[in-house]
């Protein structure tokens, strides 16, 4: 009897045979003969009866190693490494079948573990174009109950007050107080209004859009209840025309609610009337400011006015007007259905409930999350967001868009709520959260937001119209490498004046991105000014590209792709870049396969 040192079993069941296991068998036979191993290694056909879904399967004994998806081309490696070399070929190993251990549904994901969904409770669950499904998700129960029982309006306002809900548009004013002011404000002819601010303009923010697209009826119900609570019978939703899907779904929802008698005259026979209309904005950022929004609804040019009088006293058409943000309204029915206490137990001492954030930038899980107030930035970025991609380091997170600031990595354990964010120089804002890694230049970020504000400033007041432009010019000067240390003092002074004298929140908060980066990343500003160097390699004027001779293989790919022919050299010899001609587009860097092009 022959003594074999190894047995190779090739599965030839139907499934494996279909995937050419016979060819694998023949190839093994051929190579064993070629290598003179036929006396020492036996090969035979078998039916492995397992893992054949990822066949052809090959088993090698005495180890009992199972290889899957073996192709004839893999045979050489398998024989040389495993049979002759005694090393397992990792890449052919059978991995646990995905069916057995894989997560197949969303709820089990890390992404949802730290979340608490109140404003987004129906998003991704019900059909936003079906009022029936909203009813099925306990929709319109709060409204029905209030109108049936004729709940005194003050009781509703007290409930909202007791919940501790604060305005989700960013400033964080107590919603209950706002309702109280609007309810108490006298109106000569009895006309009051309820308005919804759906003019979401922060770059990188899309929370309101998602609520409107996923659950429009909750906004309608909350506004109707608000109308009942403050004594208004007309409502407007001011939404930007750039949100066509949200506009369509809102329109559809209003028609359905009217059909069912949940909006309109004499709702559910209670004698209470509430009409609701949409007003489309043309996309001006300043129209998200409450006074500008209200004059825009009136059909006038969207410019803010000074407060007081606050809209709750004199708003739309000079009548008392209640204006809340989409996300604020999205919390209302939940609070009325679950009680103020249930809401007040979530969150921190002064910030109750949850907050929706739109995660964007350098983060793995871009998307929408809703977390209880007081969750740390670390939980949001690392656990829910999945961290920074490509192994880069977390540098800062920007909240609040052009009105907010940057939170540096050193403050990543700050619990997120209204007051903490203000304390560290940022603000809650509407909820955009942009994550930045080491490749982001903080001066450039500040300049980006200033550029946005300069564009969007309405021009009514001088501090904002001229101040933001001057601020932008100074930042631009620094990124061009022409800055001086005195410029930093000028910037700080300008920021101070802008904050204290601009007419509306747009101008008052415009310095935030600059001030917060200046506080937390002053060294970067100084590097730009003193060393004429951009640490992140973003500011074009301060960056030069060159080729590392030792790494360059002379393939010529960079020269081929250079749009201005700044790169020259001979094939198979190191190339070089003419910095005089180079426009610093970075194309060579991205094309080079040997990482020979560097910037600094």
């Amino acid at each position, binding site marked *: 009897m022959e003594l074999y040192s190894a047995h190779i079993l090739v599965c030839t069941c139907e499934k494996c045979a279909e995937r050419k296991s016979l060819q694998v068998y023949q190839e093994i036979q051929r190579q064993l003969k070629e290598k003179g191993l036929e006396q020492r290694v036996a090969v035979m056909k078998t039916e492995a009866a397992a893992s054949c879904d990822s066949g052809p399967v090959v088993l090698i004994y005495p180890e009992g190693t199972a290889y899957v998806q073996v192709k004839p081309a893999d045979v050489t490696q398998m024989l040389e490494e495993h049979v002759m070399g005694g090393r397992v070929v990792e890449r052919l190993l059978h991995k646990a079948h995905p069916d057995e251990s894989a997560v197949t*549904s969303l709820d089990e994901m890390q992404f949802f573990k730290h979340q608490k969904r109140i404003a987004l409770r129906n998003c991704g669950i019900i059909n936003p174009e079906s009022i029936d499904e909203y009813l099925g998700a306990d929709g319109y129960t709060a409204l*029905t109950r209030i109108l049936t029982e004729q709940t005194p309006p003050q009781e509703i306002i007290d409930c909202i007050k007791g919940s501790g809900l604060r305005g989700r548009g960013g400033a964080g004013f107590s919603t209950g107080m706002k309702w109280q002011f609007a309810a108490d404000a006298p109106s000569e002819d009895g006309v009051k209004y309820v308005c919804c601010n759906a003019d979401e303009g922060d770059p990188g923010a899309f929370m309101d859009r998602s609520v409107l697209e996923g*659950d429009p009826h909750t906004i309608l119900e909350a506004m109707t209840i608000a109308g009942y609570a403050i004594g208004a019978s007309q409502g407007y939703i001011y939404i930007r025309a750039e949100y066509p899907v949200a506009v369509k779904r809102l329109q559809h929802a209003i028609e359905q609610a009217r059909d069912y008698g949940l909006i309109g005259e004499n709702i559910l026979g209670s004698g209470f009337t509430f009409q609701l209309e949409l007003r489309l904005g043309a996309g001006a950022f300043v129209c998200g400011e409450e006074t500008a929004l209200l004059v825009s609804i009136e059909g006038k040019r969207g410019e803010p006015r000074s407060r007081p009088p606050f809209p709750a006293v004199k708003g739309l058409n000079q009548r008392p007007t209640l204006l809340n943000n989409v996300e604020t309204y999205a919390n209302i029915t939940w609070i009325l259905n679950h009680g103020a206490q249930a809401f007040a137990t979530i969150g921190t001492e002064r910030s109750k409930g949850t907050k929706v954030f739109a995660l964007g930038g350098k983060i793995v899980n871009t998307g929408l999350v809703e977390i209880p107030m007081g969750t740390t930035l670390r939980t949001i970025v690392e656990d829910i967001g999945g961290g920074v991609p490509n192994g880069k380091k977390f540098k800062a997170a920007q909240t609040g868009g052009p009105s907010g600031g940057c939170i540096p990595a050193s403050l990543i354990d700050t619990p997120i709520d209204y007051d903490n964010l203000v304390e560290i120089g940022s603000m809650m804002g509407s909820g955009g959260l942009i994550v930045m890694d080491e490749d982001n230049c903080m001066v450039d970020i500040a300049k980006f937001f200033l550029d946005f504000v300069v564009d969007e400033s309405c021009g009514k007041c001088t501090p904002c119209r001229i101040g933001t432009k001057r601020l932008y010019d100074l930042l631009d000067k620094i990124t061009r490498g022409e800055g001086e240390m005195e410029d930093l003092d000028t910037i700080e002074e300008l920021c101070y004046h802008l904050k204290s004298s601009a007419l509306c929140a747009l101008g008052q908060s415009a310095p935030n991105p600059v001030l917060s980066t200046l506080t937390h990343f002053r060294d970067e500003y100084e590097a730009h000014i003193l060393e004429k160097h951009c640490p992140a390699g973003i500011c074009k004027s301060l960056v030069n590209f060159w080729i590392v001779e030792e790494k360059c293989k002379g393939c010529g790919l960079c020269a081929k792709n250079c749009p201005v022919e700044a790169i020259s050299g001979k094939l198979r010899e190191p190339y070089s870049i003419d910095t005089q001609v180079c426009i610093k587009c970075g194309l060579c860097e991205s094309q080079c396969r040997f990482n020979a092009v560097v910037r600094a």
Partner: protein
Amino acid sequence: MKTREELQEIREAAKKQLDPHPKAGAKIRVVVGMATCGIAAGARPVLDTLMREVARHHLDDVVVTQTGCVGVCRLEPIVEVYAPGQEKVTYVKMTAKRAARVVAEHLINKNVVARYTIGAAD
């Protein structure tokens, strides 16, 4: 105009339909994320294919419908299947071709197409 009683009836019926763990005999709900993020990623052809394939195979026990953004915009288009007696299955990064396969494999043959599910993503 509906009366309170009529609203309550609609509510009860919809509740059964929305049950995340449908009872035996209930219809299979196939839900496509159709918010702006989903549509931008190509949810429209996915929804169309699902509806067409379900109609073509006369799957009377399947309802194809739409929903808003569930939050994982990175993995859109997302399709979720709620079937009686089964855990919810979340398919991600769907295409029309994948949708047709899910109809054939999952809805007809009752085999979850594991490699399109959220656990197999990335």
